[in-house]
């Protein structure tokens, strides 16, 4: 398996403006979130990229894509029919290849020299099967993520064979069906927002779309994949940042800055803020 294509979804209702937000990257350069996501993909050797967008979003996305704009295929999801449908819109682009998939409202920071997407692609290429990046996540965050039940692959610390996937499970269900040996109690393997999807995944999604006339999630499709073929989850050495939640953008910016060239500057700013804060509190009487 060789991964040369990537698809990014950015058509979620209310989320389509997130990739257009501007941030300062680790090198101190201001750019759009979309540009940073594409950089992540590009650094992994991907050649062509598709972005699923809402109707009418192409122009701002073109602007936000910066220097990568010529390598991008924009695919419009005509009607908001869910995450699964958004991915299926790229069938023509993907063809019979395996593809790296990222969500448009997440940014990734690797804790090692290899990028997060690079780590994932290496696993997929060596194991020759669909792989999802996962992260150990506290149960209070379960309402936001797809979650997997998995067994650790022998002799691999970070690789799991997925048995089941549940989209946004309740903690009750997670505790009954999704506990993973080796994880601390109340912690589950949740999606990282990055996957390698094989043609078989697209087959499953097509089949779900044809029999269920309703929106469906990627988790639902991957759950079916898990029952049909070998499907792995890889615990990535890195962190994902969801820019779509409250303070998500701020947290992402802090993470970028504190791991980059402006670390000292930002730290000084923060310390100053902390020092000023009590004065402010007194001044406002709060």
């Amino acid at each position: 398996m060789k991964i040369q294509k990537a698809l990014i979804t950015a058509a979620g209702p209310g989320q389509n403006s997130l990739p257009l937000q501007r941030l300062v990257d680790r090198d101190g350069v201001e750019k759009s979130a979309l540009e940073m996501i594409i950089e992540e993909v590009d650094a992994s050797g991907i050649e062509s990229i598709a972005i699923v967008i809402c109707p009418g979003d192409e122009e701002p996305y073109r602007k936000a894509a910066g220097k990568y704009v010529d390598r991008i295929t924009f695919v419009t999801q005509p009607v908001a029919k869910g995450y699964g449908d958004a991915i299926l819109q790229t069938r023509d682009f993907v063809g019979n290849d395996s593809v790296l998939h990222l969500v448009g409202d997440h940014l990734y920071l690797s804790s090692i020299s290899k990028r997060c997407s690079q780590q994932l692609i290496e696993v997929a290429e060596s194991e020759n099967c669909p792989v999802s990046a996962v992260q150990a996540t506290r149960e209070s965050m379960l309402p936001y993520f797809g979650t997997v039940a998995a067994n650790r692959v022998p002799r691999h610390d970070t690789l799991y064979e997925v048995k089941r996937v549940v989209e946004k499970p309740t903690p009750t269900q997670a505790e009954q069906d999704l506990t993973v040996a080796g994880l601390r109690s109340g912690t589950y393997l949740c999606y990282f927002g990055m996957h390698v999807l094989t043609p078989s995944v697209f087959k499953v999604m097509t089949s779900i779309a044809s029999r269920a006339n309703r929106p469906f999630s990627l988790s639902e499709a991957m759950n079916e994949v898990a029952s049909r073929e070998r499907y792995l989850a890889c615990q990535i050495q890195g962190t994902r940042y969801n820019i779509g939640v409250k303070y998500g953008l701020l947290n992402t910016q802090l993470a970028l800055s504190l791991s980059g060239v402006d670390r000292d500057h930002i730290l000084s700013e923060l310390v100053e803020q902390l020092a000023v804060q009590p004065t402010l509190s007194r001044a406002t009487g709060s």
Partner: protein
Amino acid sequence: MNVPAHPKAPISVENIWIDTIVSDDEAVRNRSLESLCAGIDANGLLAVADRLDTFRKESDNLYHRVRAQFYLAAIYRFFLPKVFCETQTGLLEFDAYQHILHRRFNEAIDVLLVAQANDGPTLAVTSALAKAYHQIGFQTLADQVRRSVRTVRGNQWMFRIGHPSDHPLRLHKRLMEVDPHHRSFPILVERTSVRMDFSHSGWSDIFFLGMDYPEGARVVNAAINLGVYGRDEAPRPPVEAYLRVIDRPVLRLVSVDLGAEAELTEIDDIFDFAKDYLGLLKAALIASGVVPPAMEGCHRKVSELLKTLTGRADLGLEVVSQVNDIPKGSRLAVSTNLLGSLISVLMRATGQVEQLEGGLSEPERRLVTARAILGEWLGGSGGGWQDSGGIWPGIKLIHGCPATPDDPEYGISRGRLMPQHVELDLQRVSKESREKLQKSLILVYGGMAQNVGPILEMVTEKYLVRSEKEWEARLEATKILDQIIDALQDGDIRKVGELTTRNFFGPLQTIIPWCTNRFTESIIEQCRVRFGEQFWGFWMLGGMSGGGMGFLFDPSIQNIARPWLLETLVATKRAMQTRLPFAMDPVVYDFEINDRGTWSTLLTGEQAVLADGYYSIVTPKWLKRDMRELSPQTQRELLQLSSKIRLGNTSSSWLLDRILPQPPKTAEAVSNLKELLQSNGFDREQHEQIRNDLLTGRLGLSQNRLPSQTSISDVELDDVIDLRLANDSDDLKRSVDSQSSPNASSLGYSALVDGRVAVVTLAAGVGSRWTGGAGVVKGLYPFCKFNGRHRSFIELHLAKSRKISERYRTLIPHVFTTGYMTHEPMAKHLDEANRYDYPGPVYLSPGKSVGLRTVPTARDLQFFWEETSHQILDEQQQKIRAGLHIALMNWATTVGEASDYTDNVPMQCMHPVGHWYEIPNMLRNGLLHQMLSEHPQLQYLMLHNIDTLGATVNPKMLGQHIQSGSCLSFEVIGRRADDRGGGLARVDGKLRLVEGLALPREEEEFKLSFYNTLTTWIDIDQLLSLFKLKRSDLEDTELVDAGIRKLAYRLPTYITIKDVKKRWGQAQEDVFPVAQFEKLWGDMSTLPEIRCEYFAVSTMRGQQLKDPAELDGWVRDGSAAYVNSLCSW
């Protein structure tokens, strides 16, 4: 026999006990307690106890530990006291007792064992050890169930989520979709049936049993819909839980049946179960994970939690519970199924159950059940594991399961916490069989108020120690269950009736004799007489009979049997309601088997309306507020309600009933109370004086105590006459006849033969501890079977006097003192029973004094709860008790401290004024005068309490009293751990009886070796002279009154707090603490001018039976057999 302090026994004997506990071989493991104890003397038993104590400390297996603890409890309670001599009096260390009260059982045992090693076994120490081992056994079991409930997968996360922002549940989106036309939120309603058990194989559904004996834990039960015969058109699921979103960020809880409503804004309030009647709804919120248990004490707002749940700051939740007027105590597990229903609806609403509407999958039912168990633990109750049977559809066999390596119980207990449900589907129990059953079985609620808790403890203990008869009965009950299943499969309902009847009269009553009662057996008997062969049998439901019960008839006569049964139940209840506690009139049900289990429906649009009962609770509150202050949703609902009433779609009478003043129902009761007070000698002046003294602090619980500098010391051995070896069962006649010189026995014998003695049984009190304040006549309570049928206290006392009369060929006049509550029923009952054909005269001495209860002062409540020792309860129950105390304290201050307590039926508002008055009453009401006229030779009275069952006219004691020449001879017994309430002491050097509530410090009581039984031998003439009277003065009421007043003035008045029940709704009961005053007989011993003597008597003779929970031990330790030997029936 003196037992050395450090006994040793052959090792093999002790090892047999340990082998029995640890063996995998059933034959060894199930060896009975009796066979283990056979032939072991006191030294041997002490050595066994020593080994078992070491074993229980060292063993890391839960059930091994618990069995050892129960063996130890049984040895110290039942076996050791039989083989050592009880003349070895001893003291119980106050520290040990305090340790027990504070649940520091191990510490208590250590202190007690040191005392035993130093002084040898005494009743005081062995009874305390038995209590400590018994309680530590149950504590260990309860802790394990609690741990298991927490470790059930799917429950654990709730114990980790402590902050609303971390809450991982989200409300189902459909519940937040506003109907565009009606602008209302949808309502999710869960309808759940209740469960009816065919057989529970000898209470094998108790968790403790199921977890140790999964093979034997088997129950067959069915989910049933109910209707009240004559009221409802058709049976329906009786339990309903409603949930909807509301437009204010609060949690609104409404219990339609209990008429309670609350809007909660603080998370901490959800954990206060005793504050109102909404405890079950609160437990459901917690157990469902909507408010996870880990949030207890988080001090956060409900609005924060709701914001996380709904994603919006302006929305709240409303949960409403409704039970179709099924009375409490129906034995159909209504509360567990309501809890299950509430939990289910809440779990659906938060996505923990997949389907918002419809039924539940098997894993979901199991999860809801696990959460219901958790909820019951939180609420301080504890049902059996079959109780959620209404959640499952149809008829099912529920059985225990051995724990496997995947279960959290593995290695701890033999069985799992959660049982397995196997549906007996239509293939196994055909439709025809079900219909036949429905046409044969008549379900009823007998109306009796009951407490099943002690029964469940008795069952557990008897199982764990494998009491011989009970174990055999358990094995038989298991066989009966198989036969019931076979009969159901064969459609042979008559056979089912035979089997359930055999089960009831056989194994169930062998295991627990107290599961039956006179009421139940009377109804069964009447069914047999009326319908003969067409009465197919009796069916006990749940833990005991008297509440929910079943009667099977030939289906062809069901239409005749049903109205007859209702009539018979009501008539029998009316005839017995002064003798047995009834919570309400009996009810007959219609029922049908529910084949789909709990079921949920989403009501939308115009269907999204709650029942009239709901609006009758909330509307009056809404109407009190300005319309503009109400939320838009509430305003719309009021408008809709208004249009419905205008259009005549719903009756408006319920609304008018709630918002307009009602003719005071209590007016009649108040006038009755006034009349009753007047006719029973109520002294208003004295009452006002007492109220004033209570308010100013001159009277009160702390003022009951003697001054703190009073010296209290134990008596010396020669202060008492030791009669503990005088056997009441001996036939003294022969020995006295053969003796030439007069001695005590022959003096007593002569007095008896000459008719110089009469018996006075004190029966004026209401036995508030016996009935839990239910207000029935304890003397008439048919408490235990003797010679084939239930006998009451008064029948038993007459049977003892009859035996003495027969043995000594004499006639003993027998007096029962009565009070305002007991006189009429006793007179009527004695007439109806023809005075039990007692050969001598039977008199009633009606009370001539009565008091009016008052609301206690906050000061006294505080003293009662905080400054006197009470048994601390298990952690969760203690929390609930603490909440209840706050609520009751608020009640007292709101209603008015020391104000008259009139908010109850008149009989419950009045109180007897203490047993001191009962002898003076005999003077005042002319009975003593009458007796002396009819029996001028009468010289002595034996006075005893109604519950001192071993007291009988023993000639030796009578003779001892005559020989001593004293006015009063009091009988005392060696103190045991539970004998609280004072005793025989030297108070500032004077030998006297002292009441527990008069002791300056609580620990003083533990210095006293002897406990007062109240049994008193009285010299009539000396007593009269104490009142400054002679026999000839008894006709002069003024002289009598003056004599009594003068003496009464010299005796202390005590303030006491008593529990009184108030009944309401469908067999609901509230218990209120009320204050009353008393003068007590024992204080006669303080009078300097009379001579008193003190007889130490055997425990069997002097012990009192105060609480029905003591009955089982009373039978097992031989007391019942002993008492029976004193009787002639």
